[in-house]
């Protein structure tokens, strides 16, 4: 769907994007992750043709991106605002028409979305009369009204209350099912890991890591399991011996504890269970999955280590 190839962008004195490439598929949610200042917004502005890259190119559906393609893109900027003095309906109509919809098309879709969100009573309100959450709903509608093939959402959940955040999350998933490709940018990595299919991690203007989220998570699996048991910690630790290492432990009450155990060598979870079953009563076993934050930190560490070599 969207292909970004070797984008470089420099501003006076610093490089905002250094050879960034990524590809999103149709019907997928792609997470563009990275801390503040990593270059996410610069990349999004280039995809939106708000600014141009110094080198590299952007393809949409296999063809180089053109000015007309903006009708196929829906953009929810991080810094979002509306005309305060303008009435809600007029405003949504204005932006819909700027995206190339006819008056009739726009009207039908506005009615559809406003009925869906049950906010038709806002039509004649001025934006300044709306709460922040209400305004954000309007902004979301403006972003998706022209049924774009590619949705670019910059920090979409920031500023939303939990109820609205859930509502928007559901809508995003709905749009994905309809075949839209969604590029979701955020610095809050944990907020998106459950809905992203693929991710790209950017740090200090460079690509750190990219790919299918599950593959990445597998790749960064550490082989650490959390085991809750009843019995003596001393016996438990002794039983592990040289095939496993005890990473962390905590006592829940007098004779119960949770231990984080890492598999060493070629040992499997089965081997671990066989080893400890004779010593303690196992109550629960869970794999410790690294969070996106952990993966990010680990990937940055690896990358930097690699750069130094």
């Amino acid at each position, binding site marked *: 769907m969207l292909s970004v190839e070797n984008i470089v962008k420099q501003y006076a004195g610093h490089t905002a994007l250094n050879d960034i490439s990524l590809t999103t598929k149709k019907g997928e949610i792609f997470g563009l992750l990275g801390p503040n200042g990593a270059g996410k917004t610069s990349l999004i502005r280039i995809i939106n043709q708000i600014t141009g890259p110094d080198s590299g190119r952007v393809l949409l559906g296999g063809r180089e991106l053109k000015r007309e393609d903006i009708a196929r893109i829906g*953009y929810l*900027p991080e*810094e*979002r*605002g*509306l*005309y*305060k003095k303008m009435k809600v309906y007029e405003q949504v109509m*204005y932006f819909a028409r*700027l995206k190339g919809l006819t008056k009739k098309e726009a009207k039908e879709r506005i009615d559809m979305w406003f009925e869906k969100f049950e906010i038709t009573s806002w039509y004649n309100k001025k934006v300044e009369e709306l709460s922040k959450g209400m305004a954000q709903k309007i902004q979301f509608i403006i972003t998706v009204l022209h049924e774009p093939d590619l949705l670019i959402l910059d920090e979409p959940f920031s500023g939303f209350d939990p109820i609205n955040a859930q509502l928007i999350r559901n809508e995003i998933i709905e749009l994905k099912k309809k075949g839209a490709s969604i590029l979701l940018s955020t610095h809050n990595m944990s907020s998106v890991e459950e809905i992203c299919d693929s991710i790209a991690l950017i740090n200090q203007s460079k690509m750190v890591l990219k790919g299918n989220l599950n593959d990445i998570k597998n790749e960064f699996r550490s082989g650490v399991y959390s085991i809750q048991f009843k019995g003596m910690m001393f016996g438990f630790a002794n039983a592990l011996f040289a095939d496993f290492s005890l990473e962390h432990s905590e006592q829940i009450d007098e004779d119960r504890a949770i231990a984080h155990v890492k598999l060493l060598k070629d040992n499997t979870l089965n081997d671990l269970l066989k080893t400890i079953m004779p010593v303690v009563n196992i109550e629960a076993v869970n794999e410790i999955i690294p969070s996106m934050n952990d993966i990010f930190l680990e990937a940055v560490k690896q990358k930097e280590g690699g750069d130094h070599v």
Partner: protein
Amino acid sequence: MSKTGLIIQREYGSRVRKKSFLIITLLVPLIIAGLGFLAMWLSVQETKQVKVLVADPENLCNGKIFVGDNANPPAIFYFYEDYLEPSVFHESGQYDDYDILIGIRKEVITNKSIKVFYRERMSKQTEYYIRDRIELRLEEYFAMDRGITLTEYRRIRQEFNFILENVDPYKTDTEPAQIVGFAISILIFIFILTYAGQVMRGVIEEKTSRVVEIVISSVKPIQLMMGKIIGIGLVGLTQFAIWAVIIGLGLTFIRIFFFQDMVDPSNLADALAPIEGMSPDLLTDQAAAVTRESDLIWIIYNGIPWPTLITLFVLYFMGGYLLYGALFAMIGAAVDSETDSQQVMIPVMLPLMFSYFIGILVIANPNGPAAAWFSQIPFSSPIIMLQLVAADTIEIWQVVLSLTILAGTIILIIWGAAKVYRTGILMYGKKASWKEIFKWMRH
């Protein structure tokens, strides 16, 4: 509709539907028409009687002048049977009671030339009255001198040439036409400032509310900038058009109902009746002159080339507005809030304010080099030129040249402003310095 068209429509629609626009657009012209009426009415009321000293060393007038049966003539004549230099008249203090000095020298018989020195420019009405009386008296003299009747003399007569001069050679006169021209200059200055200011506020509003991000993901920054400038400019033109219509109707109404006798030549026969024996063609000739009972009224209804001025107002307003509007849009994009804009605005406000002050100087001297230069420089020409056109001290080629220079400058300024605008609107949280603005322009 094109995207720029949609932006123009929004900018225009959102402004003309405001209550404040409606109120100002309807109220101001009514006030102007009202004040205009007041000024015209007062100008009719206060006809000052002037004292004219006729220096007649040859005693051609024989100390007499025919004043008719006018109970309250605009001028009273006194005679002095010797030469009197205007400098003496002006400086000695002895003649301070007299307002006007007329020198009738021996040469008048051959060159028909009469010099009139005034301390303060008299009204046209007074001027024509004086000319009329002096002419009549001298004609009598010439007719008698040649032994023919006055009627016969009138058939073969030559026009007298009255040369009006201020008795103070260093003093220049301000014609009412120039004052009207200056008023139009002020109007264009206010229009440019108001509407260019609106462009800046609009840009700042879009930038600070961040709505610009959404807009420019749909349109190019230059489309947004030009859409805004054109939309707001059309609001200005709409306002001007409504003002012109209301003021025009108001003046027509005033003319029909209050000053009809002054503009209708058929009403003038009575005014001229006391002068006996005047031939009919001479009567119509003089009718136009006597119409000028009040200079102001005459100027407003006959002396100002309104269609030309209105056309040029529209052209120069558009020119000046596009020039300053683009600069103000650039500043709006470069700053982060309206309070920040003050300092950055100074270099742009200076030429505008400067033009205004030049405008004041030009009233006194519409023929001077300042007028010629500043009516060509594009940053001041929209404000200065109309004044010169109203005073009729300018050639058509100068107007065309000035408009051409203005148009060329506008293209350059818009080109530069668009570059700054493009970069500036997405720079949040900092105020750009002029150094940075120039850097963006070169980028």
